[in-house]
């Protein structure tokens, strides 16, 4: 059936017409024959109208009157996400040694020769055991919950600004390399749609689903607290304020 909202009002109209016809022909036996013919005719009209709307698309579900049906090939070309269970990971594989070379070519300039990070660009290793410490460090090794997500992110977002620029094999190799330098897999690990969902990431169970507690204030109006002291004050001058490309002198 066609589910477009614009199409739905047509159905009661046709039913109304049917009721009028039924009343007109009721009583005479031959009328039932005419009815059957009419129904068949109506059905034909509806089906052919829908077929016309669907255009070239036949066989699958009917297209609505707005938008165009996507073909399986078109969907496959767009559908590039990977879930924790591995759903969506593409065919192909890559190993640690290949990943090391690719890393040097495509990534080291920003993330550092040893993936230690540079300036404010994040490190891609380290931070184990730091999450509940003084200075939590969130990296693939210390924080990320699942390995298909490492594939998904590098594929869609790295090198910076170039979505889906690396081939699946290249991304698999980079993931193998990054998991290895984080001490999560051995140096003979081969990353693929089969192996990545099975990798036990150190922080796999570190994420809590909702519902979460809500911070609650109290609506008191008089003598709500003792007279306050100032415990900290922001520096009066702001550092590093930019307008476009220009640094603003405060």
């Amino acid at each position, binding site marked *: 059936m066609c*589910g477009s*909202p614009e199409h739905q009002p047509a159905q009661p109209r046709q039913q109304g017409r049917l009721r009028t016809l039924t009343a007109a022909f009721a009583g005479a036996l031959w009328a039932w024959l005419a009815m059957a013919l009419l129904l068949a005719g109506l059905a034909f009209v509806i089906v052919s109208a829908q077929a016309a709307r669907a255009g070239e698309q036949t066989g699958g*579900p009917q*297209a*609505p009157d707005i*938008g*165009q*049906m*996507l073909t399986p090939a*078109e*969907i496959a070309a*767009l559908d*590039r*996400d990977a*879930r*924790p269970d591995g759903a969506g990971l593409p065919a192909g594989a890559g190993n640690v040694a290949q990943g090391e070379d690719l890393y040097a070519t495509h990534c080291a300039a920003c993330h550092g020769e040893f993936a230690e990070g540079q*300036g*404010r*660009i994040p490190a891609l290793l380290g931070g184990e055991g730091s*999450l*509940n410490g003084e200075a*939590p460090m*969130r990296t*693939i090794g210390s924080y990320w919950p699942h390995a298909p*997500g490492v594939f*998904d*992110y590098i594929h*869609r*977002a790295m090198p*910076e600004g170039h*979505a*889906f620029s690396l081939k699946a094999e290249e991304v698999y190799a980079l993931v193998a390399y990054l998991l290895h330098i984080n001490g999560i897999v051995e140096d003979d690990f081969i990353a693929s749609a089969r192996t990545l969902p099975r990798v036990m990431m150190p922080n796999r169970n*570190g*994420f*809590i*689903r*909702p519902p*979460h*507690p*809500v*911070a*609650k*204030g*109290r609506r008191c*109006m008089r*003598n*709500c*607290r003792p*007279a*306050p002291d*100032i*415990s*900290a*004050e*922001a520096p*009066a001058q*702001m550092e590093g304020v*930019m*307008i476009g490309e220009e*640094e603003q002198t405060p």
Partner: protein
Amino acid sequence: MPVPSRRAWLKTMLAGVAGALAGGVAAVRSATSASAADSASTAASAAAARAARGTKLEHAPFRPGMPVGARPYGLPAEAQQHVVRRWLKWMLPSRLTNASFTPLAELEGIITPNGLVFERHHAGVPAIDPARFSLAVHGLVERPLALSLDDLKRLPSVSRIHFLECAGNNSLNWQRPAVNAVQFTHGLLSCCEWTGVPLMEVLRLCGVSDRAQWLLAEGADGAAYARSVPRALWDEAIIAFAQNGEALRPEQGFPLRLIVPGTEGSLNVKWLHRLKTGDEPWLTREETARYADLQDDGRARLFTLVQEVNSVITLPCPEKPLKGHGRQRLSGIAWSGHGRIAAVDVSFDGGVNWQPARLEEPVLPKCLTRFSLPFEWKGEELLLQSRAVDEKGNVQPTHDEMLKVKSARQVYHNNAITTWRVLNSGEVRHVRLA
């Protein structure tokens, strides 16, 4: 009796009027205690001060101005050039993944002009040709569809005013007040009228399955930015193509952006080009390694999507000191991802005593609400705070109240009460109280 000349008649009349006037003024003067000499000298010294500043009462140009149509797309007055978005050199990893802040101190009412809406991009602003653009909808649907912009504009649309707030708003001030400007404490916040097609209209067109519980929204930017939206948030969501009456700005997702009212800005995916429904969330990097709230025990809360009740005073504030003693207008904004603002209270003494502020119309759900309160200032120090309450009864917490439930290491979702210290000089500082 000679007929008086016209001139003589006018003379006598004027003398009479002047006499009456003088009598009247004298009466007023004796009624009030101010002496004529006093008010004359106050006026004279005010005039001298104006002259010293180089300002005149008469400033009207009275000359021909810019011809009609000289600016096909209008610009603010030249004197407003300081009203711009600013960003911080030291805050984020690169120029592509960065944020600029809305100058909240300069805004009135609740609408953020399009050119001042804060930015947060993860791979810069892509240039998109709308004629070649389409939205793909697939996954757990009967009819996977590609919808052009023209297709979408044939569907029923809605226009709604909602705030948009980055999860990282006020994130620089978890440990201590770090920035002394409302632009940088709360400026990852804007409010626009968004026009577009209700998400459910499009999902129904595609015959979305009952098994679909999550929606992956993907952007067409250089990070193919992707987020999972739970079904509970679909009903109010809009696939927006316009903001404040015109097409979306490139910085806001031109040509399409998902608007999920009341939720963290990053869920409102820009340059929206693909929607995929599924039975499980994708747990992308941007909802795990980022935009999840790390707690003291080292575990992180996922999908903390709704922006909690919040408010801030924008007048006075560090950028807007008090300019003189006497009558003042205090003003600010309040908002909640849970619905309408029900009340805003203001304290002048750091939270000991509070009084309700006036809420300005309109008061809309999941929208900025302007509040105001007149007050007198004699030059004493003030510790100004505002505290918002929403229609679900959520009360904005103090910093200490917030830390009972949230961790100072979580970066995101700081909705604590902010304190402005007004000095004797009228200058304003961002402080924390103990």
